[in-house]
């Protein structure tokens, strides 16, 4: 399954967690490791522990939400549980589902809003301006810099939330269903932005219900069910599993079609998961006919 090397960026070892006032484990014995710069998709049905895992990586579990915690998460050799959130936020950034609730409400312009985290962590003014300009450039929101944060559309607001995190220059960014409340255009804007970050070598964890997107962007996919890690592998191998229905995962349309046609990629022995892959395979098939 996961390659467990000493040099991995993030190592999760037998992670267990139970929220206060519940009597089941939200995370149950999860272990995996991730290399620097990987794009990891996290999938699973509701209540499978996706958001809890995200918050555990960002240290909010157990340092914000109390509860019973076991095992450990190491990021660059630092044990997340023992690092204060105000320190960890320089290494790991997290973007939540609702863009609206991520606006601090204490700043009057988008530019100042992005500066919020930098002011708190004591970045010098010149450096701050440089980072904010970079982040706004990357997410293509420079044109809104003097607008009130609350006057932006959902997609713009979510990109501002991502920019606020990017500006803090974390090495790992966790996105917990960042596009679920956005329209298709807003969703595409966010995806484009995240892909740019991934290319810059930032490790990305992304929870997403749109399997086509997960299939085309992820290097590896983490499949969770009932707080347990079911599988952690390439999208091709994950989506070629026969038992995905039991985990409430809907396979990408291209994979479904190729499954019906029994078309496997001879290179990997798996069904194709993206449009391009399916197209290549089908056109090859056609030529052979």
């Amino acid at each position: 399954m996961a390659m467990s090397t000493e040099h991995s960026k993030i190592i999760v070892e037998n992670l267990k967690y139970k929220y206060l006032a519940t009597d089941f484990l939200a995370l149950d014995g999860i272990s995996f490791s991730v290399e620097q710069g990987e794009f990891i998709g996290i999938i699973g049905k509701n209540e499978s522990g996706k958001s809890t895992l995200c918050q555990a990586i960002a240290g909010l579990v157990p340092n914000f939400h109390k509860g019973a915690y076991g095992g450990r998460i190491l990021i660059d050799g630092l044990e997340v549980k023992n690092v204060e959130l105000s320190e960890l936020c320089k290494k790991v950034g997290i973007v939540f589902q609702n863009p609206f609730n991520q606006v601090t409400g204490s700043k009057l312009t988008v530019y100042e809003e992005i500066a919020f985290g930098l002011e708190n962590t004591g970045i010098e003014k010149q450096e701050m301006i440089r980072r904010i300009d970079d982040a706004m450039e990357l997410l293509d929101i420079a044109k809104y810099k003097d607008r009130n944060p609350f006057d932006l559309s959902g997609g713009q607001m979510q990109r501002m939330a991502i920019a606020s995190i990017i500006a803090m220059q974390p090495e790992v960014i966790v996105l917990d269903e960042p596009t679920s409340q956005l329209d298709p255009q807003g969703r595409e804007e966010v995806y484009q932005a995240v892909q740019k970050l991934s290319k810059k070598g930032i490790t990305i964890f992304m929870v997403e219900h749109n399997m086509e997107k997960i299939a085309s962007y992820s290097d590896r996919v983490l499949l969770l069910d009932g707080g347990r890690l079911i599988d952690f592998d390439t999208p091709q191998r994950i989506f070629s599993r026969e038992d995905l229905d039991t985990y409430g995962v809907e396979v990408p349309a291209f994979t479904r079609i190729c499954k019906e046609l029994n078309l496997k990629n001879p290179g990997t022995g798996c069904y194709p998961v993206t449009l391009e892959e399916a197209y290549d395979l089908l056109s090859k098939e056609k030529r052979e006919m």
Partner: protein
Amino acid sequence: MKSISLYEEKGSLLNKLAPESKILYIIIALLLPVIMGSRWVSIGFIAVSFFLLLISKVLRKTVPILSISGFVLLTVVIIQGIFRAGNVTPVFAVGPVSFYKEGLMFAFEIVVNVLNILLSFCVLILTAKPSDIVENFVRKGFSPRFGYVFISVFQIVPQMTETMSTITDAQRSRGMETEGNLLVRIKAFGPLISPVVMSSLINTRERALALEVRGFNARNKKTFLNDEKKCGADKYIQLGMLAMLIAGIVWRVAGWR
């Protein structure tokens, strides 16, 4: 988005001054009349406040503030003028009711004090941006957390008002009556306010998470994107006002002998 702050940027001289100078102005406008024990000082400060508001082009914004308190003050004048204990010297009569000099003088003093307080505070709140006031305080060692609470009110409250109107529309579309006589409105209050409270609680929790991951509780020294709001004249204005305060105290102490 509509703001609940009364501040408006007019590019005036007072807009450029540091908020501290204006706060110091409030302090001496309220303290000096007490120290010097003369209502003429209050009247002087009222005139100065009027002048400051006039050159800042915000005098018109004081009208709603003054008209609300003016109504209260009018009742003070009437009641004190007619009924104050110790009223002996009638000044004028309206029909069968006569107004007395002692009561009117007492009411006049109250009016002067209230106007002085209102106008000097107007000088601050109409010409200083709330975020500048708080930021300058945080620079001087005020807790950033309290600063956040103070400043976020200006944005979160209008947001809650907006949520409220969305919920009102939603409940109305389900057939709930929200308009009509008092009883109807009271009955509508519960179904309207409870979703607002619930959603505010949930939003607050989520916002707390979002603040936390942006270093809200960091212990290191904060830096600031914006430069401190002040100009060259501030130092002299503040020194001048302190000198006035000291002069007032000296005058009073010397006057006692």
